């Protein structure tokens, strides 16, 4: 970062901070950058969503960005940068300045599941980023058609052959269902569709027997009584579907979820990251954001940076090990 000439506010902030600077005594060289960081933000912060508009990732980002404007004191315009499950947007983020004026949504599946299906030597890794704040945990749920003969998970797993739709190659939808069916020794064929909407359509039309998808993608139809949820792939039951057992309760050790969080490039200044984190903590307390999560069937995932990174690395290793044990082939890149 280039040292900036002292602005008046910067100088005042610098004077106020003098005792601290004297104590730590190592900030001399970075004085200009620190002053800029102390000012942060002086202009709008771009909030990137590396997914198409209209999806869950887009919606949660917009709800968060709106709630964070007041605590941050600047606006956070949302820009969609879709492509390759978020890899296109995040690579562009890494190529830009790490000044904190550009941050992005990121998802667990890109770091933990996509590598199982798509081979990419230049894939982004979680170490490239600093996690600014963590947002949501969204459970995958296994659903069948309301008219289906399969009333419970046991019914489905006792079937001689099962066709199931997934929301795409290298998604949590595919991983969760494959782990379950392989674990239960069911002769199951996966049919990847192009996103949640088309997979759910195929199930509504009874083209397939089941689909694993996120709660947001299935709850409207579950509530309308058109689809029946028979298992959730979370450690504990979902508060939105209290009467639906987890796969673990049924004896299958399959826990797959999607988690969303906000990142900046790893080189971002500590103070800048701190300002952003604080603003988002405030935003997550706002009633509007809480209502949004409730309306969209999302659980909170609110942990600190270290715990979040540990979770993501563990999940990547764990999924890879599970997939290898089960002999899964998500795509042909693994």
């Amino acid at each position, binding site marked *: 970062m280039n040292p900036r000439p002292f602005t008046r506010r910067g100088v005042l902030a610098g004077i106020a901070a003098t005792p601290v600077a004297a104590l730590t005594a190592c900030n001399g060289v970075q004085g200009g950058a620190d002053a800029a960081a102390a000012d942060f933000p002086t202009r709008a912060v771009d909030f990137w969503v590396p997914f198409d508009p209209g999806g869950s990732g887009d919606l949660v980002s917009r709800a968060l960005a709106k709630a964070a404007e007041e605590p941050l004191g600047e606006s956070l315009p949302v820009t969609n940068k879709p492509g*390759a499950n978020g890899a296109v947007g995040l690579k562009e983020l890494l190529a830009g300045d790490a000044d904190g004026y550009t941050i992005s949504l990121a998802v667990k599946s890109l770091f933990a599941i996509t590598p199982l299906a*798509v081979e990419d030597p230049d894939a982004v890794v979680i170490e490239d980023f600093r996690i600014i704040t963590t947002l949501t945990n969204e459970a995958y749920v296994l659903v069948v058609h309301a008219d289906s003969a399969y009333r419970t998970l046991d019914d489905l797993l006792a079937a001689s052959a099962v*066709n199931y739709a997934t929301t795409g190659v290298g998604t949590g939808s595919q991983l969760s269902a494959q782990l379950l069916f392989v674990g239960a020794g069911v002769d199951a064929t996966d049919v990847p569709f192009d996103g949640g*909407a088309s997979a759910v359509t195929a199930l509504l*039309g009874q083209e397939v027997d089941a689909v694993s998808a996120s709660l947001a993608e299935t709850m*409207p139809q579950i509530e309308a009584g058109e689809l029946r949820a028979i298992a959730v792939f979370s450690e504990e039951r979902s508060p939105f579907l209290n009467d639906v057992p987890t796969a673990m309760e049924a004896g299958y050790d399959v826990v797959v979820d999607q988690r969303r969080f906000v990142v900046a490039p790893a080189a971002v200044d500590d103070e800048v990251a701190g300002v952003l984190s604080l603003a988002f903590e405030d935003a997550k307390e706002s009633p509007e954001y809480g209502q949004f999560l409730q309306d969209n069937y999302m659980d909170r995932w609110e942990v600190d940076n270290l715990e979040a990174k540990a979770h993501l690395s563990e999940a990547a290793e764990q999924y890879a090990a599970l997939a290898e044990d089960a002999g899964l082939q998500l*795509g*042909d890149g693994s």
Partner: protein
Amino acid sequence: MDFSSVLSGFAVAFEPQNLLFCLIGVTVGMLIGVLPGLGPAATIAILLPITYSLEPTAAVIMLAGIFYGAQYGGTITSVLLRMPGEASTVVTALDGHALARRGEAGPALGVAAIASFIGGTASILLLTFIAPALAGVALAFGPAEYTVLALIGIFLVGTLGSGSLWKSAAAAALGLLIATVGLDPLLGTPRFTFGTDQLADGIDFTIVAMGLFGVGEILYNLEHRDRPQPRVPAFGRAIPGRMHWLRSRMAILRGSVTGFVLGILPGGGATMSSLVSYAVEKRVAKDPSRFGKGAIEGVAGPESANNAAATSSFIPLLTLGIPANATMAVLFGALMLQGITPGPGLMNDHPDVFWGVVNSMYVGNLLLLALSIPLIGVFVRMLKVRPGVLAPLTVVITMLGVYSIRNNAFDMLLVVGLGLLGYGMRKLGFEPGPFVLAFVLGSLLEASFRRSMRLFGGDVTEFVQRPVSGVLVAVLVLTVVVVPLLRGVRARQSAAAARVTAE
């Protein structure tokens, strides 16, 4: 059906505030439709934050207005500049632009506006009375049905254009090839991505259309600067004459029904409806050779079809909660942000939103008709602008539009590359229409076919065993094999008869 909620929907639609947002929506929609490359999906995404502070019904009325308003506007650029911004207006560009070159841009746009109005309005009427019953139609179409539908579409592509059938087929084949770029839909294997994520999701339709039609056409015209410019008609000629009207009215009627039915299908319905309508009009015409050279039915049919389809594509969103295309996905998001879940419960839980939005479309279509007719004269003047000014301006707007799709600079390079390809094709006498349409239908065909084969366990005969796909297979065989054979036989007979009488 509960008619009181339909009627109270009119009360909602006619609230002054909602009328205002309807007007804003359709005007914005028409403007972005006119600008090449800028699409309704990107526009609605940009405008989403503005809708936070609006009341849900007003917000959705405005955003829906942008969507169908863009359909009207897109026609103008298709006809005047031969730059279709949506897959569903590619067909319109063929005869529409031919008419414009002949100096009949005004009547072409006039007929298109009236056709759009009738198609849109007929579709809303049908939607009002039979939407709930028709929700199931979208579900009757599984991968097998989409496979056959896409196959019919690809064969229909062959009927487009006036040039050689072989060149059309070659261009279509190239379009199918470009459709395979990106991660394999079932295996995730990268295909023709050259190791970059940028191509992992394939190439967006708008980029292909803007490259091949837009940039390609501009490059070609630069080379032919001394080519005679299209004549700019006097303002009065903007109103279609009796002859245009007589030729168009049946086409509009048929197009409206085709559009309504096919528009219900999520994914590719609107494109298919414009293609089917064009093919039908060409088949029933007394002189099919006029098509591709400026047949007004070739504008009227597809335009009523794609506007009817734009309206009926709301059916899966509002009744099943399934977004039928990229724009619907953003509208879905807009409703969710307002705390309203589109889907099976919408009509009962929020009748004011449902019927308010549906009924506002009558108003919107009327406003669009009222806006377009006087504006045609203005837009036609665009042809008077010197190519030296118009071409660079068009390229700049196209680049902005292409960037706005993914906010990605790589896409701008891609459109230039495809523009060069379009220029090359144009020079060698290959038409971009079959290429672009085959590109759209190619992804649908490949993914649907391979999904079907997985579902059927590899048994191809299931395509004819399922009722809906079986009927579609019959239609395919009839139109592709039987009709041309019969026609061949008849041609030979009449030739023989002619010889007999000559002797």
